[in-house]
C-alpha cells in the first residue's frame, strides 16, 4: 500500500550552509489495512514523512509509492486529484478553515466528489456523529475547544472514506476518554480495510497501532 525506498529529505535554510537533513535513505513498507504509529523526538522527520506519503512534499531522492502511484512522477494537479480520492489528513494544528462552520469544514472533501447536496449532508452528519460532535455542527472553529477542533479535523479526514488516513498527533489535544474513543474509531476504520499512519508522542496512543516505527534524532 505504502512503500518508501531510500527516501531523503533535506531542508535548506536561507544560507546554503544551513542544511537540515531530516530523513536519509529511509525505507518503509506499510500493507493495506495496517495501523502504523510513528514515534520519535522532535525534528526527527515524523511530519515530513506524513507530508511525503500524502504528496504534500517531494523527497530530494528516493521513491514514494502509495496505492500503486509513484508520487514523485505526478504533477501538482495530478497529486491534488490523487489526494482528493485516496488520502484523509488530520493535521497537528487542526487546520480548520475559520470562516466555515464545523459541518462545512467536514463537507469540504465531498465537494470534490460531485455528490448531490442531500448525500453530502448525510455523510457530513455521519462523520460528525462518529466523532460525537453533531450538536456543534453549526459552530465555527473559533467557538470550539482545541479537542473539539481536533475531532472536526478527524471527521473531515474520514468523511470521504479514503483508503489511507494520515494523522499528525490526532490525540494530542484530547482528554483520555475522548482520545480512547478516537483510537477506537481509528481501529474500527482499520478493521474495515483502511491503512492508518499516525504520528504520536503518546505511548498509549501508539499501543492502539498494529506496529510502531521509531524515527531517530537528527
Amino acid at each position, binding site marked *: 500500500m505504502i512503500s518508501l525506498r531510500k527516501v531523503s529529505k533535506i531542508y535548506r535554510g536561507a544560507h546554503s550552509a544551513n542544511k537540515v537533513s531530516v530523513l536519509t535513505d529511509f525505507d518503509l513498507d506499510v500493507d493495506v489495512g495496517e495501523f502504523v504509529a510513528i514515534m520519535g523526538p522532535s525534528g526527527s522527520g515524523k511530519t515530513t514523512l506524513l507530508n511525503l506519503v500524502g504528496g504534500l512534499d517531494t523527497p530530494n531522492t528516493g521513491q514514494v509509492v502509495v496505492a500503486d502511484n509513484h508520487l514523485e512522477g505526478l504533477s501538482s494537479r495530478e497529486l491534488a486529484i490523487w489526494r*482528493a480520492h485516496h488520502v484523509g489528513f488530520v493535521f497537528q494544528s487542526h487546520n480548520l478553515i475559520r470562516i466555515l462552520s464545523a459541518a462545512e469544514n467536514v463537507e469540504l472533501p465531498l465537494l470534490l466528489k460531485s455528490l448531490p447536496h442531500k448525500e*453530502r449532508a448525510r455523510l457530513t452528519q455521519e462523520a460528525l456523529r462518529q466523532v460525537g460532535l453533531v450538536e456543534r455542527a453549526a459552530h465555527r472553529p473559533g467557538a470550539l475547544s482545541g479537542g473539539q477542533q481536533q475531532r472536526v479535523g478527524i471527521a473531515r479526514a474520514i468523511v470521504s472514506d479514503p483508503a489511507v488516513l494520515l494523522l499528525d498527533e490526532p490525540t494530542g489535544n484530547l482528554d483520555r476518554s475522548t482520545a480512547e474513543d478516537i483510537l477506537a474509531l481509528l481501529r474500527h476504520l482499520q478493521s474495515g480495510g483502511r491503512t492508518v499512519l499516525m504520528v504520536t508522542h503518546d505511548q498509549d496512543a501508539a499501543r492502539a497501532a498494529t506496529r510502531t516505527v521509531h524515527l531517530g534524532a537528527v
Partner: protein
Amino acid sequence: MNTIRPGWLLLPMASLHCRPRQARLICASALVGFCLFGLTQGLKFSLKGLSRGGGHFSPLDALTTLVVSLGLLTMLFLTSTAISQSVRNDIGDLAILKALGFSSSRIIFSVFLEAALPGLLGAVLGLCLSHPTAVYLLHLLSRGHVLPSPHIGLGQLGLALALTTLILLAGVLLPALRIIRMNVATALSGQP
C-alpha cells in the same frame, strides 16, 4: 447542515459573510467606476446631440475616455489590492484546500467569485445611479437650452459588465500566481 447552496458557492459566500469590509470595498470601487462610466457615456450622448451640426466632438471624446480610464484604473487597483490582501491573509486556509485535493484552478475560481459577486453588483448599481446623476448634471449645465436626454443602452450595460469581468480577471492574476506557486507543506506549518 442547514444550507442548500451549491458546493462551488460555499467558500465565496462564507468569505463575503466573514469579510464584509473587502466586499464593500470592491462593491464601492465598482460602483464609483461604473457610475463615472455611465455618467460620461450619458453626458457624451447628450452633448454630442447638442453639437450634431458641428461634426465630431473630439475634445469631449478625449475627456470622457480619460475620466472613464482613470475611474476603471482606480477600480482595478482597489480590487487587485483587496484580493491580494485577502489571499495573503488566508494563505493557510488556501493551503488546507490544496492539501484536501482542491486544484489551484478551483481555488483561484473561488477567489475570483469572491470578488466578482460584489464587483458585478457594484457595476450594475453604478450604472443605475449614473442615469439620474447625468440627468441632474445636464439640468445644471443646460441653462435654459433643451438638451437630448442622456441615454445608457444595452450596449453600454454589456460593455460595463465585460469591463468589470476583465478588471476582476486582471485583479486576480497576481494572487493566482501566488496560489499556484504555494508550497502546501510550508504554508500549513505557518511559515512565511
